């Protein structure tokens, strides 16, 4: 027995010595953020040059070396399809869109729409006709020319016909009417909308499909199209216009792309891009595995989260990677307050009448807003990797109302004052409304999301400081969604949504009074509109009809102001994105709007690496 004990002891010693502690405690993520902000100039926008009758797109970025590969990763189960029109999840969308360019793209620095596959475009003075001029002489990867037929086919036969993922179709529908797409000649296409519609132009970033490949699949009908160019399609059947072409897909392991030699982008030496020979995405199951893979040098780029940032930052000088702070991303974390005063089928109120009085009271909502310590949440929960948020538009949105975004700190006194204005009073540390009801309600979030659960605990504390009683109930995600969408029996909820930094119109499902995600006043039954809800509806409609950025900006400023004043949703914070990428890569221009690898065709491996 003694021998056994000694053996066990020795073994455990071995194990303990294996696990070395290597985290740096003194580097807080907060410092890291201030250290990593760095200014640099974006290269000028690529321009069109014509060589031997071919309208190339010429990159203005630094000239690099050809060859090499970039290995990235994707978390989850990998792509479900490589057909860009069928992609319904972010991974499939990224993987498929790599291979098919759209007519236009967004500038990484300011989000402006610039031509990509198209050479140029004009918008008629009435804002209803968009004329696109295509590049002459550019080719699909199989050598066939890219022409107006491909564009017209893609729009009329795939997108507007409702094949695959219909989100583009949904977002270009104006008053139930679809735009018209016509071929003028081989290199000119005309889009006509029934009304001027601002979000339309950005929808033209949608990929264009090669007609000679897709036509057969389209003719075979919806069911066939749904499985067309799926994950089991041999890579050689892909005919593409983008910089990288699928080379190999191994389920649950990786997706490998190779350089498209027919790509229409060139550098300042008139050499055809992209520089890299190969692009690899390793499919990893979870965050921890991704970190291990980065540490083992198996991947070149990683999004860093929470406490790992400090650890990586400390080692950065000696390491072969560089850390970039991309600023706040489009994610928003918020507390929604249920203002519904509807009844269910049995005549029972979704929200108890006494609670309706509180939640419909602007002073009550304002008090909640002032009571919450956003800085504390950012520091404690997001490890400093976040920024307090006060507006419906995310902090990197080009339509952000910068005045409102400054926000305010926590002020308990002010909160108490607002409560008093509406007759709430405190006795022995307990808050009562003017009818003597104790202020007590439920706060939900989805269980399992540790971030939201931690926020819930902090919000509960802040509100209980005011004498309210908050029953914090994390419940299963699906049940919560059901409550939010179909059966609004809840009081307050902590949720997060992501939006677009470029197009506020995408948020209309939340803010439109009949929107399918109008959380705080979900209209599962008919209910009269609040005056400000009516105003929001009007602004959303009006802003979509204006084309000029400044006209729209004014309206969207107003819209953020209304939401800020009424506070049906109290925004808490946006996470900050931090990315580490190996130093050997050149032409890395991280952007708040587009991330790090938006210019894959220009990225190269520096000499001697």
């Amino acid at each position, binding site marked *: 027995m003694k021998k056994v004990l000694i053996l066990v002891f020795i073994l455990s010693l071995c194990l303990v010595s294996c696990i070395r502690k290597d985290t740096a405690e003194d580097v807080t993520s907060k410092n890291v953020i201030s250290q990593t902000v760095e200014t640099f100039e974006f290269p000028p926008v690529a321009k069109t040059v014509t060589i031997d009758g071919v309208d190339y797109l010429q990159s203005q970025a630094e000239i690099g070396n050809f060859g090499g590969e970039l290995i990235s990763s994707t978390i989850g189960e990998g792509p479900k399809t490589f057909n860009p029109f069928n992609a319904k999840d972010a991974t499939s969308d990224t993987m498929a869109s790599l291979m098919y360019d759209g007519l236009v793209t967004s500038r990484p620095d300011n989000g402006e729409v610039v031509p990509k596959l198209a050479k140029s475009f004009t918008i008629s003075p009435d804002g209803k006709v968009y004329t696109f001029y295509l590049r002459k002489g550019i080719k699909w990867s199989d050598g066939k020319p890219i022409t107006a037929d491909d564009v017209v086919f893609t729009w009329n036969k795939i997108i507007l016909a409702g094949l695959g993922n219909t989100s583009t179709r949904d977002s270009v529908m104006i008053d139930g009417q679809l735009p018209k797409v016509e071929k003028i000649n081989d290199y000119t296409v005309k889009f006509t909308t029934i009304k001027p519609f601002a979000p339309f132009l950005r929808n033209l970033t949608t990929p264009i499909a090669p007609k000679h490949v897709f036509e057969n699949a389209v003719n075979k009908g919806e069911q066939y199209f749904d499985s067309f160019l799926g994950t089991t399609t041999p890579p050689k059947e892909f005919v593409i216009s983008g910089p990288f072409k699928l080379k190999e897909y191994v389920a649950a392991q990786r997706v490998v792309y190779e350089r498209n030699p027919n790509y229409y982008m060139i550098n300042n030496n008139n050499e055809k891009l992209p520089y890299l020979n190969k692009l690899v995405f390793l499919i990893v199951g979870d965050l921890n595995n991704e970190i*291990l893979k980065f540490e083992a040098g198996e991947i070149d780029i990683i999004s860093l989260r929470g406490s790992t940032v400090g650890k990586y930052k400390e080692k950065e000088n000696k390491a072969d990677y560089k850390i970039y702070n991309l600023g706040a991303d489009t994610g928003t974390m918020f507390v929604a307050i249920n203002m519904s005063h509807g009844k269910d089928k049995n005549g029972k109120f979704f929200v108890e009448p006494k609670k309706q009085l509180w939640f419909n009271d602007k002073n009550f909502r304002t008090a909640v807003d002032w009571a919450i310590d956003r800085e504390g949440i950012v520091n404690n929960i997001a490890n400093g990797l976040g920024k307090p948020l006060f507006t419906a538009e995310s902090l990197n949105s080009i339509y952000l109302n910068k005045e409102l975004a400054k926000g305010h700190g926590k002020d308990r006194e002010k909160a108490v004052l607002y409560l008093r204005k509406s007759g709430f009073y405190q006795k022995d540390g307990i808050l009562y409304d003017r009818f003597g009801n104790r202020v007590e309600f439920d706060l939900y979030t989805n269980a399992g999301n540790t971030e939201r659960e931690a926020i819930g605990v902090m919000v509960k504390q802040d509100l209980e400081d005011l004498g309210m009683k908050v029953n914090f109930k994390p419940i299963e995600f699906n049940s919560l969604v059901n409550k939010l969408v179909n059966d609004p029996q809840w009081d307050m909820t902590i949720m997060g949504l992501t939006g677009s930094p470029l197009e506020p119109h995408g948020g209309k*499902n939340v803010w439109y009074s009949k929107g*399918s*995600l109008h959380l705080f006043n979900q209209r599962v039954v008919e209910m009269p509109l609040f005056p400000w809800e009516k105003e929001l509806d009007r602004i959303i409609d009006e802003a979509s009809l204006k084309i000029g950025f400044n006209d729209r900006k004014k309206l969207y400023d107003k819209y953020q102001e209304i939401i800020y004043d009424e506070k049906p949703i109290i925004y808490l914070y946006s996470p900050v994105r931090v990315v580490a990428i190996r130093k050997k890569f050149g032409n890395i221009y991280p952007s708040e709007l587009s991330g790090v690898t938006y210019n894959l065709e220009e990225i190269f491996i520096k000499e001697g690496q």
Partner: protein
Amino acid sequence: MQILKYILKRILQTIPLLIIVSLISFFIIRLSPVDPLAELKLNPAISQETLQKETERLGLDKPIYIQYAKWGKSFIKGDLGYCSTGEKVSDKLMERIPNTLLLTSLVIFMTWVVGIPLGILAAVKQNSLTDKVLTVLTSIGMAIPSFFFAILLLIFAVKTGWFPVGGLTSYNFAEMSLLGKIGDLTKHLILPVTVLFTISLAGLQRQMRANLLDVLDSDYVKFARAKGLSEPVVIFKHALRNALNPLITLLGFEFASLLSGAALTEYVFQYPGLGRLILEAVLKSDINLVMASLMIGAIMLILGNLIADILLIITDPRIRGGQ
């Protein structure tokens, strides 16, 4: 002839069993609050029409018994249906089954080749130093949880850089020579195989040792020894054959675990096998995929037991007599 009749009888018995298994699993999955469309519903960019279309495509608008009937009908025809993402379930399974089979059959083969002799050795040399060392090692093997062991090895791989961090092949696998490919596979397989091997070896070795000790103590072995037979003849001809019986039943269970036994380890090592696929499917309530994997699990278990029983009939005259 007798055996054929027996097999036929057993196969017929499995039909009601499979129906019950499928009924229970189907209803449990569908009655759980997991909504396959929850993610979509929370996406501000998805329109009401799209949601409606998805609901119809997944058949969620029909009552649950009709959903079951529909599933059952196509299952009998051998059609496993489509995943919620639109891919064919059979395609998805076929992508993963070879990988899992490679891992589990390697492990089972090694375990039996090493475990049985070690068990015999420990039993024959009971209470010797060899037996004690083996006892300590197998106790550790049985006590250590597989996922913990797997994580330890992963840390080891990262720190030393000797092994890749999970996966089955390197990203440039397709360009390697045949020898390079075998080397690459081996490098990736060493760690997961080590975890599974250590754990199942421990169990098998203990089992073999205990069985053999039992038999060695019985009267007929004493009689054989008294007859003056040499020790090897006693052990291998008389004792071992009897001691193997319970292990044959065990082999049947091993057969069932061919496809489902390595899920945890697969997950930690990011091994592209069935485990990861099915975990994801359960979380998303991807009914066709989950049902297919559960039915495969059930069929493998029944088949494994059947094989074990047939083997027993062949090896054990006592059972043959009872038939």
